[in-house]
């Protein structure tokens, strides 16, 4: 074993000990699929008006992430990968000015930092993993899109059992909605005037409600996320809607709110299947439309 004779027996003992050491590891094929999903060239990057230059044009799988792309405010560009023979180099340089770096606990920041990738890449990962069952099970990511933080996990998250309203949510007359919020409010013509409406969080969120449990939330989609959604398989599915790509979350899932002041996660309720998208500077989530097709139809009438 060792060239140091006095320790040969100890070396042999250590080698034997190695057989008794348990190190858990995931199924190798899952790891391989997850890695592959991250390396696949982008093939289906949505054209989102507020996410400039998200299309990765290179056909080579190892194309570096665009480092000068603003993407969304949350998806800060990742540093180019360092050479593997530089052990001292930091994997992720600090991103000064990232609002959430100040308000999130360190553990969450670290996790976010590790998975932070330019939006285009992550969207592509989702598009690809949606097609491969193994990738779906293995890849984990946090996606910021349209003012929503999607926490993509490997298994179905625990449901929220106690519904909570949005912070400061109060009813307003549907006709007054546009005067109570900080951005232009639209109404989907497919649904017409809502039965009721609410404004939440000091005019940051406008919500409309129709018969049959249909609900549309509109919020400033360019800032840090307002909502988070914890999602297990099946993963979000991309749906083209009037020139932008929306994402369909086909199952019920825990919905929460991220407080402006300190980024605290507030669980809200178990949301039904939801379509999320962004148009201009506003993020939208349409819940309760039932099917992906119906949701896309309704969304399209809002975009016009």
């Amino acid at each position, binding site marked *: 074993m*060792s060239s140091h004779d006095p320790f040969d027996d100890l070396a042999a003992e250590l*080698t034997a000990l190695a057989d008794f*050491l*348990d190190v858990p*590891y995931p199924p190798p094929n899952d*790891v391989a699929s997850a890695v*592959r999903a991250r390396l696949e060239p982008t093939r289906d990057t949505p054209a989102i008006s507020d996410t400039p230059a998200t299309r990765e044009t290179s056909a080579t799988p190892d194309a570096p992430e665009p480092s000068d792309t603003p993407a969304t405010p949350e998806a800060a560009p990742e540093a180019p*990968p360092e050479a593997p*023979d530089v052990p001292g180099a930091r*994997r992720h340089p600090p991103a000064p000015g990232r609002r959430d770096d100040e308000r999130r606990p360190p553990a969450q920041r670290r996790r976010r930092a590790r998975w932070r990738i330019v939006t285009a890449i992550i969207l592509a990962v989702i598009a690809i993993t949606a097609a491969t069952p193994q990738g779906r099970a293995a890849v984990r990511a946090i996606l910021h899109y349209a003012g929503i933080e999607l926490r993509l996990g490997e298994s179905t998250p625990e449901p929220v059992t106690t519904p909570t309203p949005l912070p400061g949510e109060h009813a307003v007359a549907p006709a007054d909605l546009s005067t109570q919020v900080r951005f232009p409010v639209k109404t989907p013509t497919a649904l017409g005037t809502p039965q009721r409406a609410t404004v939440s969080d000091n005019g940051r969120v406008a919500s409309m409600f129709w018969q049959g449990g249909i609900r549309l939330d509109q919020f400033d989609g360019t800032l840090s996320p307002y909502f988070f959604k914890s999602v297990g398989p099946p993963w979000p599915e991309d749906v083209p809607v009037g020139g932008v790509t929306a994402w369909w979350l086909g199952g019920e899932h825990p919905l929460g709110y991220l407080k402006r002041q300190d980024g605290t996660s507030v669980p809200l309720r178990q949301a039904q299947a939801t379509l999320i998208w962004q148009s201009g500077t506003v993020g939208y989530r349409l819940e309760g439309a039932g099917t992906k097709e119906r949701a896309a139809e309704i969304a399209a009438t809002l975009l016009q």
Partner: protein
Amino acid sequence: MDDDEAIGRSLAGDLSAYEALVARYSALAHRTAAMLGAGDEAEDVVQEAFVKAFRHLSTFRRDAPFRPWLLRIVANETHNLTRSRGRRSELAVRLSATAEIKAPDDPEGSAVATDRRARLLEAVRHLPERERQAVVCRYFLQLTEAETAQVLDWPLGTVKSSTHRGLARLREEVGNELA
């Protein structure tokens, strides 16, 4: 498909070939990351390492073995993680439960051996970091001295001396008796 063929095809853009390579080395990569201190984040470290390895595959010398080259990237990722956590890396392993049933005819001797293994593992855990890394690479991961030098990015002499000091310290801690 051997490593060289898989690497050649991966370089040509065949992701299925790389997938096969990842699957082949996945368990070893997890073991390495966990033993060098990645703890419960070993999975993240390993995935990141495989992604980086692919992106740097063109720098891999085809006449050299793939295993230590890959494990060096895993070790780097682990090092970056433990450094960013700002604390000492830990040896994230536990003694297998199956250790108890190795010698059913000799329960007393088996218990002694189990106790001995537990003590030895504890002693390894408490070695100074560099000595522990050397011992882990040489004996738990069963790398050669040259491979250990490559994986840890140390001079060969440092591997030899750290291993030697680690063994000497272990001898002091747990004594001579063999399991």
